[in-house]
Each structure stands twice: as C-alpha cells, then as structure tokens.
C-alpha cells in the first residue's frame, strides 16, 4: 500500500541543531525515512507555559525562519497566548494574514473554554485558519491553564463555524474522544501519547474516519511510534488515507488556496 502522509503536529524542540533551519532540516531527514512529505510545525526552540508577547514573537519568528527554508515541506502554525489577547491578534495577523502560516496553535497558558479565546477564534476563522488546541486529561493533575477535551468541546460549541483540532485526542483518549464526539467541527489528532493499540480504531468508530488526523508530536515523540497508530490499526485503507493526509489537506485547503498554494 502507498500512502501520502502529512504530519499535523511537529516541533523544533527535541531535535538536534543550533538554529531553527538546522532543526527542521534534521526533522525532515527523519520524516524522509518514513515517507512523511509534509509537516505542520509550531512553537520555537525554547518553550514556556505562559509566554509573554515578546516570547511569542520570538518563537513564531523561529518557525517562520524554518518554514521559509523548506516552504514545500513545512507549514507553520502561529503560537498564541490568549492571556495576551491583543498581542495574539497582532501575531495572528502578522504570521497568518500577512505571512505564510496556515493555522493557530494554543497550548497551556489558558484553559480554552474561557471567553478570552473568543476574539482569537473569530479572527482565525475569518482567516480560514484551523485552531489546534492542546488537550489532556491527566489523572496526575492538569497544569492550571491546561485544557481538557471537555473545555474544547465547550469552545467549539460557541464557534460552530470554526475548525478545531483536538491535539492528543485529550490524552486520555477513551474519555477525550467521547468528549469531542458531539462536536462536528472538532477533529481528533492522534499524537503525543503512547502507541496504545485501539486508539485509532475507537476514534474511527466514534467520530468517523473523516474526523481523525495523524500527528506525531516530534521531536518529543518518535515519528514512527505515532505513525504506527494508523498503519497498525484495524481500519480500512480509505480510512487510513484520510487520516494520514486526506483530512488535513481538506482542512488546510481553503487557507492554502487563499495564499495561492495548490495541493
């Protein structure tokens, strides 16, 4: 079987290299070994849970540098902190409206059901940019600003026209998939957890293959271990194709076409 593979979730951290360009080059070398043709990249070389506007700008600049070197292999998502609403809107305009980035990444600064996210989501939707939100439900306890999949379901219900990606499928995926099940504008993204057998089968069973995305969370995770969640799943071939690339292409097609990028 031949597959086209787009990875919805990669980072510049956890990869060797002194510059963003070196790190993305290294990441792409591993991707090549596994036949992964496109990477969505977000966040910079040093992370913080609650980045200041200056830190946001620096991290986004690093991603811009990296994707500029490999424009036909990598898409950037702009990293925002809803605690700094205006700075985030400015970054969104700078990197997506006026720059090459094609999506929004939100991490753990603010739980995503809070109202401060609303202007960011509205603006992302105007720009045709999907919003990828970290979600995790930890029995060990979430970070103060860490979103649960239930938080994302609440946000998605307020913004039915927006497109959301539930990164990590909520971590505790057996609960997370249930939480986002009623939300047709939320896609489950498989990355970041152990390659536990059955996760993809459940996602397809509960959401349909059209709402599931492959992502790796590399460099923190192995590209291969995360790819196995799809390649090893007992699902049919058309479903694998959708999860590995088709669904992400469909999500990104409007914004890519608006930027003159044909896929």
């Amino acid at each position, binding site marked *: 079987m031949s597959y086209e593979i787009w990875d919805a979730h990669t980072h510049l951290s956890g990869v060797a290299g002194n510059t963003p360009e070196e790190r993305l080059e290294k990441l792409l070398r591993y991707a090549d070994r596994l036949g992964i043709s496109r990477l969505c990249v977000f966040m910079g070389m040093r992370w913080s849970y609650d980045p200041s506007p200056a830190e946001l700008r620096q991290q986004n600049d690093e991603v811009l540098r990296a994707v500029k070197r490999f424009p036909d292999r990598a898409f950037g998502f702009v990293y925002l902190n809803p605690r700094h609403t205006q700075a985030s809107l400015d970054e969104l305009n700078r990197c997506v409206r006026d720059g090459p980035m094609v999506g929004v990444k939100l991490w753990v600064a603010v739980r995503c059901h809070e109202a401060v996210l609303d202007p960011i989501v509205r603006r992302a939707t105007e720009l045709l940019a999907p919003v990828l939100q970290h979600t995790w439900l930890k029995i060990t306890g979430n970070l103060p600003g860490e979103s649960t999949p239930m938080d994302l379901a609440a946000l998605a219900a307020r913004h039915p026209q927006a497109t959301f990606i539930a990164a990590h499928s909520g971590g505790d995926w057996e609960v997370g998939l249930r939480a986002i099940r009623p939300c047709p504008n939320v896609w489950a993204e498989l990355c970041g957890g152990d390659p536990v057998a059955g996760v993809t089968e459940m996602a397809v069973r509960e959401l349909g293959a059209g709402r599931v995305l492959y992502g790796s969370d590399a460099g923190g995770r192995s590209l291969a271990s995360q790819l*196995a969640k799809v390649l090893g799943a007992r699902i049919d071939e058309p479903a694998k194709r959708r999860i590995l690339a088709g669904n992400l292409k469909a999500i990104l097609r409007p914004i890519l076409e608006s930027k003159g990028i044909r896929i």
Partner: protein
Amino acid sequence: MTRPVSPLRVGRRGFLQAAAGASAAVAAGPDPGQLPGNRQEWVDVNVYLSRWPMRRYPNDQPAALVACLREHGVVQAWAGTFEGLLHKDLAGANARLAEECRQHGPGLLVPIGSVNPLLPDWPEDLRRCVEVHRMPGIRLHPNYHGYGLDHPEFARLLGLAAERGLVVQLVVIMEDERMMHPLMRVPPVDVAPLAAMVKRFADLRLVLVNAMRTVREAALAALVRAGQVYVEIAMLEGVGGLERLAAALPAERILFGSFSPMFYFEAAAGKLQESELPAHQRRAIAAENAKALLAGP
C-alpha cells in the same frame, strides 16, 4: 509551490518502505531493501498474553497475537502474562501461559513466567518455571507486587535466577502514569538500587522492560556498565531515539521489544527505520542480540 508527495508503501509484513517514484528526499534515504522488515527477522522480547484489566486490545487473544507477530516476520516472542501483575496464584497463571504458548505459538512464543518474591514459598514457583514449564526466563513486576529493589527477597530471587541460568526481565512500568485508571495508579519501579544488586551477581542476565519512559540514558548506561544488563525499546520515544540510545549504550545490549498487544507492533519496528543505523546494528537489535542472550554464555 508544492512538491511531489512522498508515498509510503506498507509491505507484506507491515513494515514501511518508500514507494517507487517517491520524492527525491525519500529516495535519498536508505535502500528499502536494507530495511529491517525486508530481510531482517525479529525477536520480540516484550509480548504479553491474557488480558489487560482496563481495556481490550485488537490482538489480545493468543491466535490473533500470533498471527500478527508471524505476519511481521517475528521468529521468536518472549511472552509474559498480564495475569502476572495482579493474580496471587502465579503458579496457575504460569501454567496457563505455558499451555497457551504451546497451543497457539509453538516455535514462536517463549513463555516467560511470573514470580512474586513476597508470596509464601515463591521459590517453588521459580522451580516450576524452570523444571516443569522449561521457561528460559522470568518476568518481574515489582511495582505491582509491592516491593522495592532493595528488598532482601528480591536479592535472593536474583541470586537463584542467576544460579539457574534464567534471563530476568524486570518491567519498570506498564502504562503512562497520566493515563492510569484512578483505582490502579502504579508508580514506576525505582531502579536506583539495581546497579549495586547487579554487581553482586556476576552471572545474572537482566533485561529492563518498558524502562525507556522513566529511566534516563545516563542511568541506563550506568546499569549496563554494572553487569549483563540489557534494555528493550518499546517505550523509547523521541525522533531518532534509537540513534541516541545506540550512541549511549553498547548496541549489543539493545533488544527489540514491541509490547504487543498493548502497543501497535509497528511502533517499535518503525523506530529501526526512523533512526539511521548501520545494517549490522539494525540486525543485532532486531534479533541477533536477543538470540545470543537466550542462548546463554
């Protein structure tokens, strides 16, 4: 602006290979004919039979698991049992494990019995593993059995296992601590006392299983230096992780483990493709190291 796609083909055995006509970048990778799934057989040192208490897995029945392993080219799989974690009648669990291996995977499944050194008369369980079931090794779950590695009975168990020439598999963790069932939160095994223990038993052959999540490379390297200590890769993560591990440890101490059926088999197999390793190292990790270990000194 877009480049040609990089198609991937999944071969008969489920491994990954760049398809004909793939992108230049992919074509610049290793010759697919050299990838492990094409020519390399696998010895999987981390397989479980029976059922995990908290969920079902697609291959958690012996016949399905054996079919999956054979499909991927596994020639030998060291099989423990999930029953070894929580059952008190480990003699019964080991007998069932041996029977299931005989029934479903002759020539493939190698039964690895469970021993809990806190149970009364545990040396009898060990004796049966060796003399009745002809098991070449035992698998220990200290965190599920409630003892630390400084416990005197653990030391006694290691001594007896070494005397009998058994391979000892010590399982550090079974699942991500963040994901555990609220009623079954089991911390990882603290391996800090292990190096001193290993030094006491020169003949001991020890395999750390599911260690890569919590035991860092520096600690692993110290353990490996302490004696005949091996590590398998089921929970190894990070892009190119196997390259880093092979740089930190002697490659002959790295074993292939999939943690099937709890993990997708392809996860571990793909790590050998993701990392750039010399062909001889890849073969060693995939099968040869484990074969040599089981063959004994």
